[in-house]
């Protein structure tokens, strides 16, 4: 059964001179219960627009978006943003409890539940500090905990790890996979990193440049944790790169290049000073 179903979704915006700019054309997409789908596309291609539509923050010009067989509403999906979007006036704990209060849960119950979800992302001891006191990676973990606490059937993630350094990103990717395997929620994860998509996804959906349409879908029925140096991934990486390359802009290219350079040096023992080993 499809948890999320998009049918022929279209969206246009109007430019400065009143001209119509088509952002999405005929997007058909399905995500099943417990499926991890990565949406890969060049920046500015409309990924975020698509995500906002799925989140119920924007309505499509045409087509249908169904979550669990019902039309989408703002509170039916959980969304994790690139930069957290935490509330700076609330403690970490209250940030996680916020969504539960909004739903009408009592303060005490909400905090107890929030605490449980903070434990899941290993941030229990930071419950009473404020978001600015956390590192970027920790803030993203709070954002994930906050979304999970609402127990949505479905998670949307908009490049949640792209603002983090490589090491923190790897760590959070592992944590996310772990949480996902425990909860079996459907996940739609937007990224512009091929590596990230290959590491995480059951299925990679490649979008074209504007107007975005689905260019290709790649199924990756491989177990995790994955080693991207192994044959199926090396093959798919090349494949996706050639597919993606036509759309790639300079920034994207350097990002991917930087990722690759780092992941390659990480193989060398000398380049891993953070491995704690007593001599």
């Amino acid at each position: 059964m499809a948890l999320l179903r998009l049918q022929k979704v279209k969206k246009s915006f109007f430019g400065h001179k009143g001209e119509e700019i088509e952002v999405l054309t005929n997007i058909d997409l399905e995500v099943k219960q417990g499926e991890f789908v990565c949406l890969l596309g060049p920046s500015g291609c409309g990924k975020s627009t698509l995500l906002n539509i799925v989140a119920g923050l924007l309505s499509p010009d045409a087509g249908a978006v169904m979550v669990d067989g019902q039309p989408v509403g703002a509170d039916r999906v959980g969304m994790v943003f690139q930069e957290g979007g935490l509330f700076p006036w609330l403690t970490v704990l209250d940030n996680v409890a916020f969504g539960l209060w909004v739903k009408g849960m009592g303060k005490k119950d909400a905090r107890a539940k929030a605490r449980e979800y903070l434990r899941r992302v290993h941030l229990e001891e930071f419950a009473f500090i404020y978001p600015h006191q956390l590192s970027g990676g920790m803030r993203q973990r709070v954002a994930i905990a906050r979304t999970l606490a609402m127990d949505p059937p479905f998670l949307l993630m908009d490049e949640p790890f792209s603002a983090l350094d490589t090491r923190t990103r790897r760590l959070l990717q592992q944590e996310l996979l772990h949480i996902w395997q425990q909860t079996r929620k459907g996940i739609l994860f937007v990224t512009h990193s091929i590596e990230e998509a290959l590491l995480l996804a059951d299925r990679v959906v490649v979008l074209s440049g504007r107007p975005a349409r689905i260019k290709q879908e790649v199924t990756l029925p491989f177990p995790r944790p994955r080693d991207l140096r192994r044959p199926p991934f090396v093959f798919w990486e090349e494949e996706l790169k050639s597919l993606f390359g036509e759309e790639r802009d300079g920034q994207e290219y350097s990002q991917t290049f930087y990722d690759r350079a780092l992941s390659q040096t990480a193989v060398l023992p000398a380049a891993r000073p953070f491995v704690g080993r007593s001599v």
Partner: protein
Amino acid sequence: MLLPAPSDVLLTLVQGLKEGTLLLAFFSSLRRILVSFTLALTLGITGGLMLGRIFWLDRLLGSLIIALQSIPSVVWLPLALLWFGMGEGAIIFITSLGATWTMIINTGAGVKRIPPLIIKAAQTMGVSRLQLFTRVIVPASVPAILTGMRLAWAFAWRALMAGELLSSGTGLGQVLMMGRNLADMSQILAVMVIIGATGVAVDGFIFRRLEERVHRRWGLTG
């Protein structure tokens, strides 16, 4: 003689406080500013929140309010005296007016500066329109509101003194005028010391502290 000796001023100050005339004047001014400031905060925050969220209202009134803010509030006194007579009403009117515009402008700017991401995040958590307002927009504007309060306090204090100088009653400004009538410079300077000290004390002990606390919590300090 241009100025009285500092020792004379100090003597007058101590005497005035002991006898209670200066103290009485001080509390009378304090009462007025508290009434006016409360009024200004209520109107200013409400107005600012509305202007920050309602686009057409901002387009309609935004620049008018900035224009009104640039009018020194004592300019309103003649009109206020005609409306309210020579009494409390006129002084409270111009004092709150001085603070209200600043409060509206600062609160409105704070609301407009809220990162869209925070609002979006709240919306994906299913907040109602009312909840978005009370639980997100209002708390997110708190730093701007506090900055507004500091400025508004300064404006209100100035307006109050100007108002008291020019009308009747028992405030600090009126004692100041009395000093002029009696040609008692040390009394004038003693009152000026009280006015200055009160302004600094309220700003330093109340508003600056509140602001610093919020800034520390939010991580806004450099």
